[in-house]
Structure formats: structure tokens, C-alpha cells
């Protein structure tokens, strides 16, 4: 079995290559930062609405936001590709405005990634917003403070753990996505070739040592981010040893 799928594996143990595609690395970072920043801007109002709206059909919106968790990335990628391309109204409008399509560009990649990582930003935010004691919000209103001010002065400061979780999960999730990137962005060096695509290419070229390095870098960053989240939440649980 192993001989069929991995012919070179038997020949030599996998080594670590010093080679690293820094262009793909920085592109991935740029993508992850952009998507995290955009999702904070979109996530705040959306999470606030999900946490506090009493609209009876709210669950439909929640289901749509959660969809990317269960959907195959290729399904989402396919529809984003269609929406960005010339077949859609939006795609045609964009092309008439800018002269080129969004598909297979960095901006298109950002749009696809924002949609794909939406639940990872919105759900932790909405959960921690809803978790803020409603009596504190009442106290703020009674003291004459507007809802928007209450959001910034009470809800956000008391939702730091949700904020850190949302940012770290969005960042890590965007960094590691593959299907959506491939569908929407293709594989253009310096434009849409991210680290996860890079690994795929390197394995296709049977360059296992380079793939190993790239995979280790991605794994290490993801581990650091998740450690940050858990250590932060742990501190808030008050089981952190007192100094």
C-alpha cells in the first residue's frame, strides 16, 4: 500500500529543507491579517445583532453564518467563483467599474476567505456579547448612556476572551484554508499562492523536505495561536496560579 501511494518514502527519511517560499509565506500573512481585520469590522455588528435581536427568524441568519463550518470548502469556493466571475451581476458590475474580474486576484481571495471564516469570528463574539450580564446593560441605560456607547464601554471590555478567540481562530483558519483558495484564487505565485497551496505543489513535485518545512511552519503558527487563546481564556477562568 505505502509503496503505491508514496514511492519515494521508502528510499529516505523525510528531511527538513532550509528552503522556504517566503513569497507564499508573506502572502499568507497578508491574507490572514486582512481577513481578520475585515471580519472584526463585519463581525462586531453582526454578532451584536445575533446576540441581542429578538427577531423571530433570527435562527435562519445564524444557520447561514454557521454554514461554512459544515459545507465542503469547494462548494463555497464554487459559488464565490461564480459570483465573482462574469456570469453574475456583481461580477459584471465589478468588471465594468475596474476593467478586470475579481476571480483569481488577491481581493477575490479575501472575499472568499471572509465568507469561509465568518462563523469563526461571529460565533465567539456573539457568544461572549450575549454572556454579558443584562443587568449591567440596564444599569448603563439607566445612567443615560446610549446603546452604542454601552457597546464600547461595557460589552466589548467584558468580551475580551471572545475577542481574542475570534481573532485567533479567524487568523489560523484563514492561514490554513485550501479548498476555497484553490477554487477562487487558483495558484498564481505572489498573487494567490498561499502556504497551504504551496505544500500541495511541493508534494506534487515530490519535494517532501520542502513540504515538511512549510507544514511545520503552518503547524507551529496554528499551535501558538491556539495556545494564546487557551491561556487567555484560562486566565479569565481564574485557575491561573497566583503569583
Amino acid at each position, binding site marked *: 500500500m505505502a509503496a503505491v501511494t508514496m514511492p519515494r518514502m521508502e528510499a529516505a527519511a523525510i528531511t527538513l529543507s532550509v528552503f522556504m517560499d517566503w513569497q507564499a509565506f508573506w502572502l499568507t500573512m497578508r491574507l490572514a491579517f486582512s481577513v481578520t481585520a475585515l471580519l472584526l469590522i463585519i463581525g462586531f455588528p453582526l454578532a451584536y445583532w445575533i446576540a441581542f435581536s429578538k427577531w423571530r427568524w433570527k435562527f435562519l441568519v445564524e444557520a447561514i453564518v454557521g454554514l461554512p463550518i459544515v459545507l465542503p470548502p469547494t462548494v463555497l469556493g464554487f459559488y464565490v467563483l461564480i459570483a465573482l466571475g462574469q456570469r453574475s451581476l456583481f461580477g459584471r458590475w465589478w468588471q465594468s467599474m475596474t476593467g478586470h474580474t475579481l476571480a483569481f486576484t488577491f481581493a477575490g481571495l479575501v472575499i472568499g476567505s471572509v465568507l469561509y471564516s465568518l462563523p469563526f469570528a461571529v460565533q465567539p463574539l456573539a457568544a461572549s456579547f450575549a454572556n454579558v450580564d443584562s443587568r449591567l446593560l440596564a444599569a448603563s*441605560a*439607566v445612567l443615560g*448612556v446610549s446603546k452604542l456607547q454601552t457597546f464600547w464601554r461595557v460589552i466589548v471590555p467584558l468580551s475580551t476572551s471572545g475577542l481574542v478567540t475570534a481573532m485567533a481562530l479567524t487568523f489560523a483558519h484563514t492561514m490554513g484554508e485550501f479548498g476555497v483558495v484553490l477554487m477562487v484564487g487558483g495558484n498564481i505565485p505572489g498573487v494567490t499562492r498561499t502556504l497551504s497551496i504551496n505544500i500541495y505543489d511541493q508534494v506534487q513535485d515530490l519535494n517532501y523536505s520542502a513540504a515538511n518545512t512549510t507544514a511545520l511552519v503552518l503547524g507551529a503558527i496554528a499551535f501558538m495561536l491556539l495556545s494564546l487563546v487557551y491561556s487567555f481564556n484560562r486566565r479569565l477562568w481564574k485557575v491561573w496560579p497566583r503569583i
Partner: protein
Amino acid sequence: MVLKGIGFSRSVSRADQRGFSRWGAAVLKNPADNVIESAKPRLQGPTDPAVQVRIQKKREDAFELDVAFTIAQGITIIFGASGAGKTTLLDCIAGLTTPEWGHIAVGGRVLFDSDRGINLPVQNRRIGYVFQDLALFPHLSVKANVVYGLSGIHGQECEQRVHKALDTLSILPLRDRRPAQLSGGERQRVALARALVTEPSILLLDEPLAALDLPVRMKIADDLRCSIQNLPVPVLYVTHSRDEVFMLGERMLVLERGKIIAQGTPHEVLSAPRGETVAQLAGFENIFDAQVTAIHEERGTMTCRVGSTRFETAQVEIETPLVHAVQDAKLRVGISAGDVLLATSVPVGLSARNILPGRLLSLAQRDMIIVARVDCGVELSVHLTLGARDSLELVPGRQVWVIVKTHSCHLLAE
């Protein structure tokens, strides 16, 4: 110095000097209260309605609040069991919940009027509300909590007002602490400072002492009384503790299942309770159905036949104070377990008019009190000290005589 800014003689006359000086000039000097600031004699008498409330509010659990009252400046207690609608009433005044129908006005300003379509948003009502759980912002320091409501005020005036509020409530040294680092009493004062620094037109206090331990509660209740009793705004104080009622209240409203069933001074309301809930809250462990069998106008008493609500068979006659009732009228009688005496032989030469033979059913110790149950035709709870039990050698089954003064029998309306 102390008297600066307090110009209304009404407060001076009844002021407890300590509470008076503690608030001093600190509170309430907004343009609307210029009368106070300019030290003119206050035109508004204590009976002028500072607050008018007439509302109906249905809750999802089929509970309905239906109240109408006016109150004057000073402390008014709202007394009732949990679930009577006390917090719902405060929330309606604060604007946190909207009544179906009614009218709410504070100091002449209409906050809510269903007929005229007025419903001021919470933010614009100028309410001081101290919540049951205090609702201090846990991420802010004491000072930041107090500053929180002063959004439109900046610079030196803001500093001064906060400093004064912290100082008058003696929490100035705690200004940099977080709420989690404060004791219950300190948190309480921070919540009060936060509400008062905004110069509200009414102060609402929702069981502010409920979260405190019993030993410190009375001490803090005293501090609280000093802090609030001379405020030139109406204070609505919600509680279900009779100790707090007698300690704080000049006037009280009794709320039962969403309705006001009694109002007046605490003494009037609790010493002559009308409803059964009040009677139980006021400390009547024994409540019996009674029927008037004879009226003695000249002696100011009546004879009533009482039967326990649980044991209809046995009945006994007792003498009670005279009330407006006719022969055979049905009433209820409340007797506090602490007002009943026990004797182990027939007592002679007593002024008490009700001496009933009975049998001791059980003795149970509750904290430092012995609760004895006696069958004397009706079943009666009696509170005794540990020493009384021991010296009388009381054991279940023993023959005893129960002694109740006429005026310890409180008649309640059905």
C-alpha cells in the same frame, strides 16, 4: 459649611444630624432644582405628589401588575413577598419595561403616558436605580463606575462631582479598586454614589441589602438611611424585610400579587395588617378563620369563635379587640408566636383575657428559639426561649395553658 445648599426647612426639622451632614451640599444641584440651590423656602409641602404612577402591566407568566399611587419626597417603602411585582414596578418607572397602559410622572415630568403616546427612552428619564445585585461594572474602578453616567460633563465639574459623591459616601480611599476587591457594604455605597452623582429626579432601590450577610445588614441599613433620607428627591425603596421597613420607612405601600393592598406609615400598616400576606410578612405565625359571636361595644372587645383552617372540627372562643364588624361576620385572626405565653398550671390573677387549656404537641429548636406546637382546640405555634423550656420541663404530651392578650389578637380582613 454643612448647611450650604440645603435650603428647605422641612428636611432640617426632621433631619438626623448625621445623615444630614454626610450628604451636605453634595447632592442634586441641577437647574431644575434651583429652589434648593438658592436657599428659598421650599414651596412644595411633604404631601405634594412628587411621583404619580398609574399603570397596568401584564407579564408573560400571566402575572398582572395593576397599581395606582402618588408619593411625596422622602423614602417610600414598597413592601411585598417575592413575586409580588416589586421589581416589575421599578422597571416600569425606570423604563426598562413598558406597561400596557397608564401614566408615570416624576416631579411634574411625564415619563410615560399611553393615552398621549409618551414613552421616554430609559436614557432620558434621569432615574437613579440601585439594582438588587448592584450591577457595578466589574471591569471599571470605583471611580470609573461613578464617572460612568456623567457622559455630558467634563473637566473640573466632573471631577468635583465625583469627588464629592465619593467623599460623602466615605469611599474616596477606595476609588482605584475594582468592585471585586470591595466588601458588600462598600459595593453598596459605590452603587449609591454612581446613581446619585447623575442627580436623578427619583431614586429607586431594589432590595439593596438583600445581598449582604445578616450581621452587617442592620449597620449598613443605618448608613443607607443616613445617606438617603434627606435627599430632595423621592426615594422608592423595595424590600421584603420588616426590619428594614421599620428602620427606613416613613410611608409604605404593600404590594400583593401585583396590587397595592395597603398603604400608610409602617406602624399603621404592619400593626393592623389587613391582608394575609402582610400578616405573614409582619410576623404572624398563627392565622385562623374566625366568626364574630358577640360584640361588646362598651368594653371595646368582641368574642370570636376561631377554628384553624386545617382542623375545622375543634373550635374555641377568644376575646379580640373591637373592629367594625357585625354579628356572625367572618374574619381572620393573626397571632404572633412570640406574643403567646405558656403556663404549666392554671394561671390566676392575670390581666390577659384568653387563657386556653391545651396539650403540647411538639417542640422544635430553630436557631435559639424553641417552636412549640400546642393543641388547644386549634393548633397554635408558640415561641419560647431555651431557658423557658428547661425550667418548665416541657415535653410533648404535657398539659399546658396558653395565654393570649386581647390586643395580641390582630384582626385581618378576608
